[in-house]
């Protein structure tokens, strides 16, 4: 090893470090800090320290539990609908055959499209008078099933989270595919020689060996649901009457429509801590080494 010029170390690191600290690290600490204050955000002088009372308010507000329930529904769909579909697709597409790359690219395509475009697309699909769903139902003679999808409190939450579930199937598929690619082909061959084919091969060989990848899917789906905002905000804004309000929207409204910055920060801290604890605990108790 020759001598390196040490002077350039700070010179080359500082630009990234300053940006990163100013807009990521400092804000995240500030958010946790502010969650201990009553603060409307107008001026710093108006901050009033009040300990954990934002959190007490959070956990005693019925609305919070309603929002949590909606977020939970999104989480369930992300984990138990989106991941299985993605994994099944990856099982079908992990081996090379004619056209497999083509299908992979198509399934992944929605992932790279902006949430705003996707939401706009679904707003038209759901449109009461001109939406494809209602028109199709009408044509099939099932007009009684048609409804105002984004205004009916009973179905709105499902309508609002359907685009999120749909859009990221391809991402789950590719995460699972990368898992399969890291497993040596010989293991599959050996298993097949031992008579593990079809369902048995899937159940006892492929899925267990791919558990690491599925775990990643689960963690990002749960954390993604906690942070989710765009689609639901554009489609319903959380309405009607909070029926489709999820955590991300609750936080946004508390911060930027009623300016309860302190309270909103406690919601943000909740999202941060919940996500962090979930991934740590999940990794600890569900990591299995074969």
């Amino acid at each position, binding site marked *: 090893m020759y001598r390196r010029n040490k002077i350039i170390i700070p010179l080359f690191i500082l630009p990234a470090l300053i940006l990163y600290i*100013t807009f990521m690290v400092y804000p995240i600490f500030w958010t946790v800090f502010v969650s201990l204050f009553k603060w409307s955000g107008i001026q710093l002088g108006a901050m009033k320290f009040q300990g954990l009372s934002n959190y007490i308010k959070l956990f005693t507000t019925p609305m919070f539990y309603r929002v949590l329930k909606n977020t939970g529904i999104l989480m369930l769909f992300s984990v138990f609908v989106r991941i299985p579909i993605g994994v099944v697709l990856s099982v079908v597409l992990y081996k090379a055959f004619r056209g497999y790359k083509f299908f992979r690219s198509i399934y992944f395509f929605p992932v790279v499209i902006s949430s705003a475009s996707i939401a706009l697309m679904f707003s038209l699909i759901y449109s009461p008078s001109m939406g494809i769903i209602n028109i199709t139902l009408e044509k099939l003679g099932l007009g009684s099933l048609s409804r105002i999808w984004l205004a009916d409190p009973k179905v709105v939450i499902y309508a609002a989270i359907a685009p999120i579930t749909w859009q990221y199937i391809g*991402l789950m598929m590719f995460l699972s595919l990368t898992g399969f690619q890291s497993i040596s082909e010989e293991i599959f061959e050996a298993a097949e020689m031992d008579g593990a084919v079809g369902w048995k091969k899937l159940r006892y060989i492929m899925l267990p060996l791919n558990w690491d990848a599925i775990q990643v899917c689960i963690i990002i789906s749960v954390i993604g649901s906690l942070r989710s905002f765009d689609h639901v905000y554009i489609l319903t804004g959380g309405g009607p009457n909070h029926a489709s309000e999820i955590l991300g929207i609750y936080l946004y409204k508390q911060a930027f429509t009623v300016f309860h910055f302190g309270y909103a920060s406690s919601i943000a801290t909740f999202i941060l801590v919940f996500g962090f604890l979930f991934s740590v605990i999940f990794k600890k108790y569900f990591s299995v080494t074969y």
Partner: protein
Amino acid sequence: MVIVGNKIKKIILYFFLVLIALNFLYPFFFMFLSSLKNNPEILQNPYGFPSVWRWSNYSRAWTKAGLGMSVLNSSVVTVSTVILTTFVCSITSYILARHKFRLNFAIFSFFLLGLMIPAQGTIIPTFMILRKLKLVNTYFALIFPYTAVSIPFAILFLTGYMKSIPISLDETAVMEGCGEFRIYAQIIFPLSKPALVTVAVLTMLDSWNEFLYALILATKPKVRTLPIALSLLVGEHIQEHGVQTAAAIISLSVMLVAYIIFQKQMVEGLTTGAMKG
């Protein structure tokens, strides 16, 4: 028998694969068809091709819905963010990959922590900081936070790649009389091109599509980005579906072209990002 059975199996397999492909593609295609119709046509003939191809929907989206301005804004923000991110992260990664010093690993890990920070956790203070700097409703209000958000992944990815470049190249360069700047600029930077492209593509994708920061930090029409412009169309009462869908098609066509060219990098970037997050 076995061969026939295999053939049937194959046909069923392809049938389902095509069906699923339609599930992902048809909504976009449907949107494209709608973008060429007016309201009565969508109602009467929702599935078919339009009788008259109304490209005027596109020009109206461009001017009336203010999309032209938003395309410009999104482009400025995205290009600036990509350039800033690749530049600051490639020099930092060069140091982290090539220099041995006490804090090296600590700094690297410190950057990686950012992969776990949600946008909701930073948005309120970011808003306050930018307001103090009088940067709200300027391009910088988006360029700086977008760059900061991109830094953790970029440094993770670039540092890993640069470490795989043989160190003997640096040593030869030093013997030839090269200084640090030239080693970076003439050896490491060009050789890192594949990783730089992945980082640039992923940063482009994130900046072009980002919604929450843009919603709060750039509300004025003169800096409004595409996703926000689109979201405003959804809420409109007098809805012209043709114009709305035309706007969405304009927005997603950019990503469609990018996807066709950079599919490999997008998949690689998004999956690696998810694995480490």
